[in-house]
Every structure is written in C-alpha cells, then in structure tokens.
C-alpha cells in the first residue's frame, strides 16, 4: 500500500474542490484510505492519518472512527505521536464519549513522565476536558505537581487543579496545603495561575475565603511591585506591566475585601494608586480599572469627594489624574452629581483638558444618561461651552445619538437652531446643528416641540442661517460642506426649492473644490435625478465624515444600486463558460464619472504603462467605448494581481448610466476582488496565494449604458490576459 498522502497535501487538494459535492467526494475517498490504514495497525503513519482526520473534522465531517487511534497515539513513546494524540483527544474524546476514560491510565503515566513537555501535554488535556471520574483518579498527581519547583509544570498544575475543583468540588480541601507558598513565586506564570486557583477556592467556600484573607498583604505587595517597578519588556503591554496578573489580583482582592473592613483598609492605598497610575487611553488600562470599580464598597468610591475636589487643584497633573479618575468613577447612581462637577470643570479648565474632558462627558452621558432629554441637554452644554475643543470624531457619534433619539428630534433641532443664532464660531456645534437642521428642518418650521416652548421659524429664516454659515469667515471647509448638504436636503422638506436651487448652482463654481464638487453633484440631482433627491434623506453619516472623497456618499445612496438580482444576470453571463457557480461582482461606476469624462472624450492620452512587467491589455473596444486593464502586483502580497479598469469614451456624446459587470469562472473562487474607485472591496479574499492556477484566466463582461438617449448593452469575453497577470 502506498504511503498515505501528507497532511498539507491533503489540505491543498481539498481546497481545490469547486463544489461541496466535490469536497465530500474527496473527503470520503481519503477517509476510506485512512480507515484501511487504521485497520492495518500501521504505527508509522498513524500520526499523519489522525492529523488529516482532525482537519476533516474541522471542516464538519464525522471523525469518530479516529477516537481509538488517538488513544494509541497518546500511548506511543514518540513525542510527535503524543502531541497529535492529545490534540485529537481534546477535539474528539470529550467526556461524553464512551472511550474517554480509557485515557486515564495514559495521562497518569504521562503526568509522571521524565520530559516536562509530555507532562505538560497531559496536564493540559486533563485541565481542559477531564471528566469527573478522571479528575477524581488523577487529583493526587496534580496535587503533587502543584508542589514542584519546576515553574513550567507548577503553573499548569494550578490551572489543572482549578478544573478538578470545578468538576469535583469536594476535592478542594486536598489542594489547600499546596497553596501555602504559591504566592512567593517570582515566576509570573505561576503567580497568575495561582491567583486564579485561589480565586476559585475563595469563590466556592466561605471558609477558604476567611483562610486566605491573610494573603491580602502579600497580594498588595505583588501588585505594588508590578506598578512601581520599571519597564519590564517581558511583561509589558502598552506601558503596563503584566496587566493579566494585575487584573486577576484585583479580582481576588475584591473578593477578599468584601465585607471585611480590615482587608479593605489594607487595600485602599494600593487601589487608589492603581487607579491613578493607570493610563486609560488603551484598552489594557481600562481592563485594569474595570475590576477595580466593580468592588461594592470599594475604596475608590469612598474617596470620590476627595477626587472631585482635586479637580479644582492648582497642580495640572493632579487635575488631570482627578479628571481621569472622575470619569472612571461615574456610574448610574452618581451621574447627575458627577456630571455637574465635570461640566463645571469643563467650563473653567485649561484648554489642554477640554478635548479629553468633552470626550469623557459624552461617553459617560451615553452610558448613564438618566433620560434622553438630560442627555441632549448635556451634549448641548458641552457643544456650547467647549464646542471648539470637541474632537472631530465626536461629531458623527453625536449625530448617531441624535438620530436614535427619535422622540427628541424636534427638541434637539430647536435647541441647536437657537444655539446657532447665538454663536457660529464653534465648528463641531455648527456641524451637528447643520446636520440636524438638514434632517429635521421640517420639524423646526412646523413648530412642534413637546419639551419646551416651540419657536416660530420660517423656511427663509432657516435658509438664511445656513447660507450665513456658507459665507461666514468663521466656517471651515468641512462646516461649509455640512451646510451645503443640509440646504440640499431641505429641498425635499421645504417648499422654497427655487431658492435652494439658486444657492446650489452658485456654489458650482466655488473656489473650494470640495464645495464645488458637492454643488455640481447636487445640481445634477436637480437636473437629471430629481426623483432621487429624496434619497439624500438617508445619507449615511459615516461617508460624509470620514476624510474620504464625498463621492462615496452619493455612490451609496443617491444612485440606483443594482439589486441583488444582478447575481442572476451574471449567472447567465457565465452560461456557456460551462462552469458552475460564480461570485457576483458588479461595479456600477457612478454616472457622474461618465459625465465628467466629458474631458476625456477626445481620445485620452493616458499612458497605460506596464507595471511590474505585466503589459496592459485592451479588454474591449467597440463603438467608441474602450476598456483597458492594467495590472499591478499588490504591494503587501505579490501573489495578488490588481487589475485596474480604465473606461474611456472617444465619441462626441456622453455615455451615462454606465454599468460594468464582470464574472470569472469558479476555478478562481475567491481570488478576484473588485474594488470601487474610492476603496471598499466588494468581496473579500482569503489570499488564496497558495494555489498555482493552471487555467488561463477568462472573464466575461457585460456593459450597459445610455448613449444619445438610447440604452446600449453588450457582452464580451476577455481571453487575452497576459500570462504574467494570473500565474
């Protein structure tokens, strides 16, 4: 019998399957081969076969006939066998299987093996999935290993003990003696796992908890060392020394300190110290503060009034710490009081704090706002007092928030409008206000407002304000963009459409390119896509606000996006390429680009240089429409070719509503990605660079456009891909 195929070879082969059925067939064939190999009791290849089985198991196929083989591997003397055997056991032999218990003896032997890595395998397996019976049988061995001086084994034994205790709580007592000097270890791995073990014991038994209270000073000392000690590259995570250990210790301290004043006192200082020393700008810092603040009668809350007073301290660094800590202390109970203090601080603090403080206030408000109105009021307060310090990314978040508070729309837009009347210098305020007016302007002029006295505003007054923003020297280009878009949106809500049209057309020749572009596009909407102006209502905020090109929001909302049925058309497209299934890839290039291609309608002189030695090619050239492909090797991954599509119109008239669709045979399943201009891949790849494709790349394209009023459609097959582009 020939040697069974290698694991990686099998993986490679299975991945070439084009359909589920084909894959199933391959798997069945291989399983049959593996089964007969098992029957022959082949020691040499057992490891390889089980590994392959595990792969197929991960794909979702049954693998129980490999269970006994895993046991044989575990019993083998070879480390390779054991490694795969134990892996197989963990994947296939959980406690629900009949043969699970057969592992016990092997594990027992391996726990006493001369090589620590074998012992490690056994401990790991036992600690991950040992059944209650197994745990009962082997607890003694684990306890022994818990006392070893070998830190590699000791840390594993500790977690194994945790598992044993979870499975068989009565056995907890027997581990008590071994815990005696666990915390005097220097090794962080042992410390971490020991703290986990101690936590488990304390959580399960009040007696244990009382017993371990005496460890508090030691835990505090360890924590102190972690914070005070200098930079330790081995354990550092973003400037914090072993956050995993810190978090675990804090959790244990919280349990030990509960309803015990002496312990709590002993912890006070260190908790406050951790709180003040921990940088919360990274997730890791917050991870540490998190358990800290979960303590019920925790020391830090007790110091809350002191901390709040520190906000008024003269020393800048104290003020900063106090501010950070204050935000960390805010919760549902103290939000109103804390917010008052923090808003007061925001009013009077130095400019260097305002941005962080504003962000903090927004976050806290979002989490704990007692009511929507309170929330909106708080936001308004921040925008009006520190409006120019608010971070750029707050604007989209606020907009999102306002969008979601449906019942507050009228109230919000009214308050924002009033704020604009007072002051248009604070850009974030102006931006949020403009956006709101654009969205809810109809509520503003209709005078509906439940929360307070509605104001009387006319459409013209609103437009005056927005136009004022456009011309004001105080407005940044971004703000102007907001105002213009808001004005445009109002064209669907207000009746004074003509006035709006005038404004939009004026800005079509603005010096500001951004503004000009928007105005031109909006103008087009008026002229050609009047029915789609209403789509602007649902403009996604994100596309407006990420630094990218504004085209994208128009692409996504204003244009008729081809519905999913395009997939069906593409299936037809591939009809007689005689290959089943295909990914649907449609790139509706926005009409605007065809429109502005007016400039290129006189034979473009775009030199399509061959990059990286792959010559460009003409994919299609008919009736004045020329489509060229240029190729480039992708920068991070040279096994990926990036094809850029250049479409040009050499006739005198425009080609509008241009849609380009492409389909490739499924032999290239996920290796072709279509991206739009402006980024955003339509289909992700799994960088299938491993496969050397044997088949010539072929593509079928479908073009539709409107030319001189008449619709044009054409299908073409592209076969002339240079070999360098796909090999």
């Amino acid at each position, binding site marked *: 019998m020939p040697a069974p195929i290698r*694991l*990686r070879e099998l993986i*490679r082969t299975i*991945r070439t399957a084009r359909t589920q059925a084909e894959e199933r067939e391959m798997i069945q064939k291989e399983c049959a081969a593996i089964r007969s190999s098992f029957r022959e009791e082949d020691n*040499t*290849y057992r*490891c*390889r076969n089980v*590994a392959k089985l*595990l*792969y197929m198991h*991960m*794909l*979702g196929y049954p693998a129980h006939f490999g269970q006994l083989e895993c046991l044989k591997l575990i019993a083998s003397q*070879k*480390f*390779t*066998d054991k*490694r*795969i055997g134990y*892996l197989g056991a963990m*994947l296939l032999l*959980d*406690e629900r299987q009949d043969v699970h218990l057969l592992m016990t003896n092997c594990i027992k032997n391996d726990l006493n093996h001369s090589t620590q*890595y074998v012992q*490690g395998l056994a*401990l*790991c397996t036992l*600690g*991950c*999935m040992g059944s209650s019976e197994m745990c009962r049988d082997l607890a003694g061995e684990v306890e022994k290993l818990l006392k070893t001086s070998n830190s*590699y084994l000791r840390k*594993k034994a500790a*977690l*194994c003990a*945790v*598992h044993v205790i979870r499975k068989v709580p009565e056995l907890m007592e027997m581990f008590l003696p071994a815990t005696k000097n666990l915390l005097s270890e220097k090794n*962080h*791995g042992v410390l*971490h*796992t020991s703290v*986990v073990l101690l936590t488990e014991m304390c959580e399960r038994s009040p007696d244990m908890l009382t017993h371990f209270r005496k460890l508090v000073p030691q835990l505090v000392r360890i924590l102190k060392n972690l914070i005070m000690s200098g930079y330790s590259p*081995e*354990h550092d*995570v973003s400037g914090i020394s*072993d*956050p*995993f250990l810190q*978090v675990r210790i804090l*959790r244990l301290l919280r349990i030990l300190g509960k309803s015990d004043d002496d312990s709590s006192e002993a912890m006070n200082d260190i908790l406050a110290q951790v709180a003040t020393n921990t940088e919360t700008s990274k*997730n*890791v810092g*917050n*991870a540490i503060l*998190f358990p800290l603040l979960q303590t019920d009668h925790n020391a830090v809350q007790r110091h809350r009034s002191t901390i709040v007073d520190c906000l008024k301290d003269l020393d800048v660094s104290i003020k900063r710490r106090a501010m950070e800590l204050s935000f960390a202390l805010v919760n549902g109970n103290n939000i109103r009081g804390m917010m008052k203090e923090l808003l007061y601080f925001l009013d009077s603090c130095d400019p260097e704090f305002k941005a962080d403080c504003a962000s903090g206030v927004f976050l806290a408000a979002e989490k704990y706002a007692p009511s929507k109105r309170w929330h909106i009021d708080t936001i308004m307060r921040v925008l009006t007092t520190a409006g120019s310090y608010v971070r750029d990314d707050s604007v989209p978040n606020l907009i999102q928030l306002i969008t979601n508070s449906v019942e507050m729309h009228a109230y919000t837009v009214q308050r924002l409008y009033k704020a604009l009347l007072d002051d248009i210098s604070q850009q974030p305020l102006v931006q949020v206000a403009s956006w709101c007016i654009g969205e809810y302007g109809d509520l503003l002029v209709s005078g509906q407002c439940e929360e307070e006295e509605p104001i009387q505003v006319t459409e013209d007054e609103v437009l005056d304000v927005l136009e004022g923003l456009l011309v004001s020297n105080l407005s940044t280009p971004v703000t102007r963009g907001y105002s213009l878009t808001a004005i445009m949106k109002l064209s669907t809500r207000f009746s004074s459409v003509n006035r709006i049209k005038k404004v939009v057309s004026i800005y079509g020749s603005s010096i500001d390119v951004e503004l000009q572009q928007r105005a031109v596009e909006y103008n087009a909407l008026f002229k050609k896509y009047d029915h789609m102006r209403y789509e602007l209502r649902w403009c996604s905020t994100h596309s407006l606000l990420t630094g990218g090109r504004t085209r994208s929001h128009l692409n996504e909302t204003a244009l008729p996006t081809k519905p999913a049925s395009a997939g069906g058309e593409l299936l037809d497209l591939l009809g007689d390429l005689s290959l089943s299934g295909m990914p649907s890839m449609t790139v509706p290039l926005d009409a605007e680009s065809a429109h502005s291609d007016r400039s290129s309608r006189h034979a473009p002189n775009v030199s399509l240089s061959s990059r990286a030695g792959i010559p460009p090619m003409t994919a299609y050239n008919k009736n004045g429409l020329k489509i060229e492909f240029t190729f480039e090797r992708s920068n991070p991954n040279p096994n990926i070719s990036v094809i850029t599509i250049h479409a040009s119109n050499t006739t005198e008239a425009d080609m509008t509503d241009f849609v380009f669709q492409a389909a490739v045979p499924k032999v290239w399943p996920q290796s072709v990605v279509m991206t739009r201009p402006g980024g955003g891949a339509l289909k*992700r790849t*799994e*960088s*299938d660079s*491993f496969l050397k494709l044997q088949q010539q790349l072929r593509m079928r394209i479908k073009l539709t456009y409107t030319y001189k009023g008449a619709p044009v459609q054409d299908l073409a097959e592209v076969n002339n891909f240079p070999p360098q582009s796909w090999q």
Partner: protein
Amino acid sequence: MQFMLLFSRQGKLRLQKWYVPLSDKEKKKITRELVQTVLARKPKMCSFLEWRDLKIVYKRYASLYFCCAIEDQDNELITLEIIHRYVELLDKYFGSVCELDIIFNFEKAYFILDEFLLGGEAQETSKKNVLKAIEQADLLQEVSHHEGSRFVD
C-alpha cells in the same frame, strides 16, 4: 472562557477550542449561530455582545475573526487583550501570520494556544516564555523524527 472560535469572513471555521463539554451537534449549532451573529455586525460596532447567557468578545484581524465566549463574571476587556496576545504569538511564530498559515498549520496553532491558555485561563503571561516552550517542544518533535518516527507533515 467557555470556548474560542476562529473563522473567516465566509464563515469557514479555522480553529475551535472548547473548554466545556458539549455534544458535536450542540457545538455545530452554537458555531453556526454565533458565526452568523458576528459576521452580521458592522465594522464600527462594539467588540462585545451578549449572546444567550454568555458574553462574546470578538476581534477581526484581516480576514480572520477571533471570537471568545466568556462568563458573566469574566473581564471582557482583558479577554480582548488575550485575543491580541494570541495573535501576537502566532505572528511571532509564523513570521507575519496570515489566514493561510493557520489553515495549513492548524495543529501548530492549537499547540501554541495550548501553551498560552489552559482550561480557558492564561497559564503564561510572558510572550517570550510561551514561544520558548513551543520552540523546545518543536525541537523535541524533530528529535523524535530523527529517531525514526514519522513527522506529522
């Protein structure tokens, strides 16, 4: 931690580590539902969500989703750090790891995970020590190979 799943954007499972005993059927059901739930989330959504009675912590790295299910009393923020640490370990081991590495060397990905976590908890907080242990174990495997046994390949 109750379990950890690694899956691609197409929902293909690349690694599954279960720390609780469940039948194959239940595991498949959970995997299917959870993968669907996580894949449906938009890029800017929070890394944490509540699902059944568990907290799910997930993060996407290139084309792979790393997804952990933890219990109520566990710290989700540190779980994110655990995920990140695991990715860093894979990255150091494979040298700029990508999804394909994990597909073709899934058993090694498991070995590394099992040197980092045990029973769902971190057993070693030093990156260096985890990698050292793996290195030594790999060496041991090499030695046993030269002693005549077959490699996994």
